[in-house]
């Protein structure tokens, strides 16, 4: 089952749900599938572990990145480069917007209302049930509501990103899948895909999932660990035969 996303894809979710790791890996996956992919770091609220941290491997793969100007890269200032509006006006096959966490992080979208108007947009909420405040369906729906109010946009899909980083087990993944499946039913929003790290991927029973699965090659790691090597650009997705 392939991930069926194109055009402008906006990744939102509660703080720490894994939006950036998902965005980076989605960009890589779609690029490997042959799409032209552009990704913008819209995280104006997080000081560490942002998309810009992975700019080197992404540009090696030929993924276009829109980042704050170099001299402001480490500033904790809410800088929104005008290039973002430009990339929205002329979207590539996939234009990914990685937005900051919670309603606070999503507020930035309201300032892009003009270029976004009339566009066909997929806005997806990343959910990790192991995070505080999104361990219940109710909690996820509350965040959805807050993000929609702040962004003045509508969420129209869910991404299940169940993980405890290195301590994730397949049991966690299955339980997390059941959780986001229930959330999908309760909210009426389609479950776009779920994620599994490449380490756990071989153990996964694919029949268990009724949606596509995005393999995660972890990029945002602390300094004592190595980011997964994304390697040179591939023509085919890594798991296109599953």
């Amino acid at each position, binding site marked *: 089952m392939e991930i069926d996303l194109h055009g402008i894809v906006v990744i939102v979710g509660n*703080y720490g749900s894994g939006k950036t790791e998902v965005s980076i890996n989605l960009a890589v996956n779609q690029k490997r599938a042959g799409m032209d992919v552009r990704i913008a770091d819209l995280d104006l609220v997080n000081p560490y572990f942002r998309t810009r941290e992975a700019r080197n491997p992404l540009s090696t793969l030929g993924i276009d990145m829109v980042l704050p100007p170099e001299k402001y890269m480490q500033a904790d200032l809410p800088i929104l480069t005008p290039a973002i509006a430009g990339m929205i006006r002329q979207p590539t096959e996939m234009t990914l917007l990685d937005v900051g966490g919670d309603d606070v992080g999503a507020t930035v979208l309201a300032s892009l209302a003009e270029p976004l108007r009339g566009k066909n947009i997929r806005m997806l909420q990343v959910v990790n049930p*192991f995070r505080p405040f999104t361990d219940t369906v109710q909690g996820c729906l509350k965040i959805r509501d807050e993000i929609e109010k702040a962004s003045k946009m509508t969420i129209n899909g869910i991404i299940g990103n169940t993980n405890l980083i290195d301590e994730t087990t397949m049991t966690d993944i299955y339980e997390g899948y059941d959780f986001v499946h229930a959330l999908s039913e309760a909210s009426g929003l389609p479950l776009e895909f779920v994620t599994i790290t490449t380490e756990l991927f071989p153990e996964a029973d694919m029949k268990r999932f009724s949606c596509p699965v995005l393999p995660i090659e972890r990029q945002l790691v*602390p300094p*004592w660990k190595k980011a997964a090597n994304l390697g040179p650009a591939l023509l085919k997705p890594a798991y296109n035969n599953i």
Partner: protein
Amino acid sequence: MGKVLMKGNEAIGEAAIRAGCLNYFAYPITPQSEVAEYLSRRMPEVGGMFLQGESEVAVAYMLFGASACGERVFTTSSSPGISLMSEGISYVAGAQCPVVFVNIIRGGPGLGGILPSQGDYFQATKGGGHGDYRLLVMAPASVQETVEMVMMAFPLAEKYRNPVMILGDGLIGQMMEPVEFPDHLRTEPTNKDDWATNGMDTRKDNKQNLVKSLYLDPTQLNDHNLLLKAKYERMKQEDVRYEPYNTDTDYKVLIISYGTMSRVCRTAIDNLKAEGLEVGMIRPQTLFPFPEKAIHDAAIKESCKAVISIEMSMGQMVEDVERCVQGKRPVEWYGKCGGDVPTPEEIMDVVRNWKLET
């Protein structure tokens, strides 16, 4: 409760609640503002309070006042904010109030930057404020350890009637790791009737308590300082904490490193072991009291040729390491403090260079 995935800053907030602390006064500053954000949401759920002061100076005295009344209370800040609080911290220490301070260090001096640093080692361990006082300083290396240390900090502060500081670098606050919380502690300080200005209702006798740091009489002030000194000596006897790593080998080099920096060192030590070079490490978990004996004893092991203090600062902890080693082995320093954390490869090079020279 099972494991949850938390940012260090969120875990600090939750750990304080579980330690029974329902008073949090703070002023936001990167990279620890998520503590305030988390607690502004969580405190109302548990009947606690987050009050944002108009500045860190104000916050320090709000802590002083609430603690003097016998309330369990804490704050979090980052380097420049702790500098602003330092006058108040001296008053809190002088008046023997059990306040918990958390410093998620950013790069300095001055405004510096917002990335990880350990540049506040001197400030935390040697006193940022005036007078002869010490903080009990604990330095966690993981989010789980941060939870444990925050929960430990409150009873320790009450045991000594002394402020305790949790010293974490920016990474401790910002990184996410799975954590588990022990059950709700919520133990009330047992000794507060002896000293706090908590009203006469529960008092068995009519003794009135006075919380103060002013002693105009020279003999009284000297006695007061002797009493404080006795507490600091007791900390050295009873509450030194450290973790040895790979020290049961015939290591050639001994690394002293704390906080997240020590985790980079661990990776380097594991890699060097695979290459056939043994390196040991002592990780101080308390920076004051410092693990003096452990470092001394590990340094003078026959196989050990050199001691290297690896820190995200320009050579602060190394002064304490030198003091412990007493000139019996060469003591070196390696570090960076702009925000780029030294990599395992850098550390491996530093250690290999030592092997070549000895």
